[in-house]
């Protein structure tokens, strides 16, 4: 059974300008021990989608569809059950999480906080031992627990956040751009930690990033989002090397292969900008920027269709597969 399953989830925000559809009919699933990369840029809806997992959206948001965490629908859970589920079944490593640390509390105390919240009767020595184990799991010496956040580097703080996410033994971790603000070397260390933990603990992971190459190397499967919809899905190396959607192709080419002379003095990108949420163009939302767009693209509503072995694409010109 999938640890996480999203069925036709849509998220609409109420704002002064009216209803803003940030996510439109997204369906995803992640099994235990597998990692799903969610690729997308600003306005793609990727953060809104993952915020539904723990029902962390603001009150101005309306969510439809089903969000099944180990079979239970998060959206219809009672408040008490939701609080129990938060962090113990699924946890989140937020974007810019390094800044989410309280500067006046020791790091160990903050890692222990979710443990204390979920197991009210846990004793101090037990909690401290668990914190030490968690720190070791993320590759930090246990004495780091005595440090304050400002004494740690960016990479160390991010690993602390991962330790905190693991604190209650969740089945699913959602990592929202966990390495974006870090140097390449530290990024590699953090990715290594995440990959090891996913494997050792049999976790499921959803990894959000705008860098397709990071996702291709760190995740098993890949889903690419644009303007609130999933436009392509499949095994990550296949989606990266042989994209079935022009947007995925463009995203994959955004970061050049160093050493490949074709990329010298030839930065590749797309014209224009990703649409603001709620301003998606008609038909295929990508058509104004698509290098292969034709008239039919502006008038036909697109949806995900199979385009290969375990592959889906919403492009009208993706390879056809008999249904």
């Amino acid at each position, binding site marked *: 059974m999938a640890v996480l399953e999203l069925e036709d989830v849509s998220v609409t925000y109420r704002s002064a300008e009216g209803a803003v559809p940030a996510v439109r009919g997204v369906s995803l699933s992640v099994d235990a021990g597998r990692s799903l990369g969610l690729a997308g*840029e600003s306005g793609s809806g990727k953060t809104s989608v993952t915020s539904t997992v723990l029902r962390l959206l603001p009150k101005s948001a309306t969510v439809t569809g089903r969000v099944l965490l180990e079979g239970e629908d998060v959206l219809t859970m009672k408040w008490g059950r939701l609080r129990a589920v938060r962090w113990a079944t699924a946890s989140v490593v937020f974007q810019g999480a390094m800044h989410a640390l309280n500067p006046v509390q020791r790091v160990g105390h903050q890692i222990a906080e979710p443990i204390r919240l979920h197991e009210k009767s846990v004793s101090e020595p037990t909690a401290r031992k668990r914190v030490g184990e968690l720190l070791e799991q993320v590759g930090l010496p246990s004495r780091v627990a005595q440090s304050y956040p400002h004494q740690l580097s960016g990479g*160390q703080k991010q690993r602390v956040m991962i330790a905190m996410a693991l604190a209650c033994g969740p089945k699913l971790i959602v990592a929202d751009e966990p390495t974006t603000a870090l140097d390449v*070397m530290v990024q590699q*260390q953090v990715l290594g930690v995440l990959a090891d933990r996913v494997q050792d603990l049999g976790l499921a992971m959803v990894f959000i990033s705008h860098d397709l190459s990071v996702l291709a190397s760190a995740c098993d499967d890949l889903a690419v989002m644009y303007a609130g919809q999933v436009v392509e899905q499949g095994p990550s190396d296949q989606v990266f090397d042989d994209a079935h959607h022009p947007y995925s192709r463009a995203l994959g080419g955004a*970061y*050049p292969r160093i050493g490949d002379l074709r990329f010298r003095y030839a*930065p590749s990108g797309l014209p224009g*900008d*990703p649409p603001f949420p709620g301003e998606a163009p008609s038909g295929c939302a990508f058509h104004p920027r698509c290098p292969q767009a034709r008239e039919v693209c502006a008038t036909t509503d697109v949806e995900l269709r199979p385009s290969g072995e375990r592959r889906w694409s919403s492009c009208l010109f993706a390879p056809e597969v008999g249904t």
Partner: protein
Amino acid sequence: MTESVLEARGIEVTFRGRGGRPARAVDGVDLSLGRGEIVALVGESGCGKTTLSRTLLGLERPSGGEVLVSGRPLEYSAAALKKHRRSAQLVLQDPTGALNPRRSVYEAVAEGLRVHRFDGDERAAVADALARAGLRPPERFFLRYPHELSGGQRQRVVIAGALVLQPQVIIADEPVSSLDASVRGEILALLLSLRESLGLSLLVVTHDLGVAWNIADRIAVMYLCRIVEQGPTEEVLSAPKHPYTRALLSVVPEIDHVEPIVLTGEPPDPTAIPTGCRFHPRCPALRDGAADAVATDCRGKELPVLSGTGGHEAACWLTGA
């Protein structure tokens, strides 16, 4: 050799660090930027590349060495600095922060003109700069405010603001790292086109080697306040000589044919620079024994500052030319 438009000679910049100990931000750098040349200055955070770029702009005073503008030393009087600003402009990393949220696009671009008391047609100059930066028709953007624009558009406004003074050099600090991936290509293409159409020289400061591969003629790799390798981009990134450059290249996600060399240990502390080669505590070559022949030099003998011009050189006792 092309004449140098902007040059750093023996630059040293020292700050007072925590606890009063001097923290070296730049510890002896020679770097020159020729006319119409694009140089990438790469390194991780804390290596000193941002401080070096700010020193070249005159925003920071070096504690040693000098900055040469078209061959002449930069003076630090208010008048000389102001004159320097017209010829060397800065494009910052975060376009959202770089624009005053209360000022319209027109005012943001015109600010430079007003500061330097431009006496030509201001409106035409602003429109021209916006058009060159890819915002067409420029009039449509005059009255917009930053929060109404996308990230890519904001960066174009910042670039227009730098172009309006018709500088010779633009120093871009992480010009695309906070932008969406699909927009990155356009902004980089814009920077390339400015070299073609205006003969601009460009110094791009970044931690992203891909940016260097995309647009830079030459690349200089910084580690702990010094340049450790520099030369033509293709040579340095295809056949790196310095172990640090090799390690950096190996962990770039886009490269999958090389086994990643993940450096151990924490990024270094600028208040405690190692003796000898400053990279030696983390050097994989030293650790694996490949550098045994020169190990004593690595640990004790300080390397000379690279000359900063011309060919491919690395500051390394093992592989340096």
